[in-house]
């Protein structure tokens, strides 16, 4: 037992959780913590807006597979984290937010919880529906236990964001601190081992399957199950489609890769899933953007569903074999049992058919008119980057073009806001990813609308020396909304025209970053090559046509069978 202040105990606890970086902004209710942090080896990266800090922590978590930590003061600081936490919640990302709070007790002032004190907000009440866990510390001695519990809950099972709310008087209160001890939570025991009978049933189905297909979701990335999934797919010669969140978990340059399914999935994946007789779905929640209308989703397939979250089984689709367990453990076990029962499968008529259809669709692919279209640019970008380069995206057309045309090869190299669809996520997330993986080039594929939402983090990237590359696909529009208005609202462009301000090259330069506007594919290549060698963030502004649409597309309210190839 050691006697120290709550603030010291917090920093000591974070060190014990191997926290190296905190993204945050200070404020009145955090002063005692920042005073301790000042002397600590934990790096504090000063963001320019708390939303940026939360997204950066999220990008850090997704790139590294570890908890990402952000911190904000009470009241508006804490509420500015909310979008970032909601985003992490829907994508199951272990983001831990530390928030300052007004005092639990104050002699002779009303700077107290429940008195509508200066910068008071009920962040526990506000974040309850968008976090896996949250707690408010009521005495300094609780801090080490609260940190251990919170990190354990956020990073195990189905990961998710968590909040620790730290009243200011608790930060300065002294107490005897106990840092060791196991985490014992009565109401939290995630199941990682699959039920042997369900594994047997899954193996039996896969053995008999003539047209098997794997649907890999974000859970494969989260549980680092890519190597196991790769081995299983090759052994069974099973084509692999990914959900949007699953992108990058299976190498897209592999012959068995089919790309993403869903509203903006590939024609190949959306077509072949209709023909599959067994679907091995790993770590996916069958979200509406992935499945389209449920009646038309893989109508002929028996579904084996592996998910660590029991509530996902049977939530959206009925399944034949439910397996509540860790993806990595389960896929390995299924593979082992198959190895005992059969030889490695060679080309089957089904795989041949998939390859034929794949080639046909590739030959028919329309990359757009002219030299400088987003699909052409993203395909060029792949050639310019090493396999370990990390791509973050914003939200909208830029995101869907990136999902369709940028081939990912290594796991955790595609970081994007899938569930919440948060514009402004990509740029701060790319900063977080770069901190996690300093030796990897990190590129944010942005639209001009999204980049405008968190562009102030240019200040963070320059002053904190975190160089990333921002590729702005600039159509001076909220492009995806405009696309829907073109397709479904008779081209009435309501509230989507952003105008051609600011000049993004000059904006970057104003922050001390590099900024360049290019006008051709070859200029883009040159700019990228230069940016990869530059030690400061580069913004590459690329004018694209405001009339370009993202295709293929499943119109809203339709099924995967109704995928429209393009117009």
């Amino acid at each position, binding site marked *: 037992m050691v006697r120290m202040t709550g603030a010291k105990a917090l920093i000591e606890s974070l060190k014990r959780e191997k926290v190296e970086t905190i993204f945050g902004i200070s404020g009145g209710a955090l002063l005692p913590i920042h005073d301790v942090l000042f002397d600590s080896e934990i790096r504090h990266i000063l963001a320019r807006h708390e939303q940026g800090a939360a997204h950066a922590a999220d990008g850090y978590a997704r790139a590294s597979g570890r908890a990402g930590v952000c911190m904000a003061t009470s009241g508006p600081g804490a509420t500015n984290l909310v979008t970032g936490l909601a985003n992490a919640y829907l994508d199951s990302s272990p983001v831990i937010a530390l928030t300052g709070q007004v005092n639990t007790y104050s002699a002779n002032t009303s700077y107290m919880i429940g008195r509508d004190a200066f910068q008071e907000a009920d962040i*526990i*009440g506000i974040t*309850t*529906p968008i976090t*896996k*866990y949250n707690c408010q510390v009521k005495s300094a001695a609780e801090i080490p236990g609260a940190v251990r519990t919170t990190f354990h*809950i956020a990073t195990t099972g189905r990961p998710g964001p968590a909040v620790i709310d730290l009243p200011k008087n608790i930060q300065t209160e002294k107490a005897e601190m106990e840092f060791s001890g196991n985490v014992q*939570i*009565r*109401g*939290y025991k995630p199941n990682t081992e699959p039920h042997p009978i369900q594994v047997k049933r899954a193996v039996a189905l896969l053995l008999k399957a003539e047209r098997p297909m794997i649907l890999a979701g974000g859970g494969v990335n989260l549980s680092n199950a890519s190597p196991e999934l790769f081995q299983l797919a090759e052994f069974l010669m099973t084509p692999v489609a990914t959900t949007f969140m699953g992108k990058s978990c299976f190498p897209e340059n592999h012959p068995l890769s089919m790309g993403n399914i869903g509203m903006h999935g590939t024609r190949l994946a959306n077509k072949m899933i209709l023909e599959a007789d067994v679907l091995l779905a790993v770590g996916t929640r069958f979200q509406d953007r992935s499945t389209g209308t449920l009646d038309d989703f893989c109508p002929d397939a028996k579904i084996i569903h592996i998910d660590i*979250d*029991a*509530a996902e089984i*049977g*939530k959206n689709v009925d399944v034949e074999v439910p397996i509540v367990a860790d993806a990595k453990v389960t896929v390995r076990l299924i593979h082992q049992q198959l190895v005992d029962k059969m030889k490695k499968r060679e080309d089957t008529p089904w795989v041949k058919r998939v390859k034929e259809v794949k080639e046909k669709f590739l030959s028919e692919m329309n990359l757009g008119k002219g030299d400088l279209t987003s699909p052409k640019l993203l395909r060029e970008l792949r050639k310019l980057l090493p396999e370990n380069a990390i791509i973050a995206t914003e939200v909208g057309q830029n995101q869907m073009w990136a999902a369709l045309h940028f081939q990912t090869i290594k796991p955790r190299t595609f970081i994007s806001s899938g569930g919440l669809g948060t514009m402004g996520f990509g740029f701060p997330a790319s900063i977080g990813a770069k901190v996690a993986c300093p030796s990897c080039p990190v590129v944010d594929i942005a639209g001009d609308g999204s980049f405008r939402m968190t562009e102030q983090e240019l200040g963070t990237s320059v002053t904190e020396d975190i160089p990333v590359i921002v590729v702005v696909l600039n159509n001076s529009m909220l492009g995806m909304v405009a696309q829907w208005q073109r397709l479904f609202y008779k081209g009435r462009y309501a509230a989507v025209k952003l105008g051609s301000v600011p000049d993004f090259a000059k904006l970057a330069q104003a922050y001390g970053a590099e900024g360049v506007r290019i006008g051709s594919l070859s200029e883009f290549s040159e700019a990228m090559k230069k940016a990869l060698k530059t030690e400061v963030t580069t913004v590459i502004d690329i004018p694209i046509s405001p009339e370009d649409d993202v295709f293929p597309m499943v119109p809203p309210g339709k099924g995967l069978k109704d995928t429209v190839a393009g117009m």
Partner: protein
Amino acid sequence: MAQEHNHIISTIVENKPGVLYTVSNLFRCRGFNIDNISVGPAEDIGLARMTIMVKGDDRTIEQVVKQLNKLIDVIKVTRLDPDHIVTRELALIKVNALNTKARSDIINYADIFRARVVDVSSESLMMELTGASDKIDAFIGLMKPFGVREVARTGITALSRGAKSVKIDE
């Protein structure tokens, strides 16, 4: 549309501030409807039992149970089998009793329903009644002609019959 029924879910939760908010908020967020809920300390210190009546089809109820299980402060969730439970509700009912005739009629009805008179004034009687909810509904119906001034009901609480129990260590 699958058929909707009333279901009773018994949960053991951490007995600490905020847990009622966390549970009720889950119902609101996910669009489940609480018909009624009763909360009180459970058999062990630090635990509380929440008995929740919820309306929905089987798929909805399965989701309710699974989503409740995900909450960290919820330790155990059980869907009670309606054929093997005892359910009770307590009601306090204040009725006008302006003359002797009314007073003796009310007390007669109360005897039949095994309600107890717990407060008397010159103009009113207050009765306490325990039982299944439909019994309480019936009694309140009978009291209406006299003039029901106030009703306070606890909402139902329930346990499964026999030795089987909803406890955290099974």
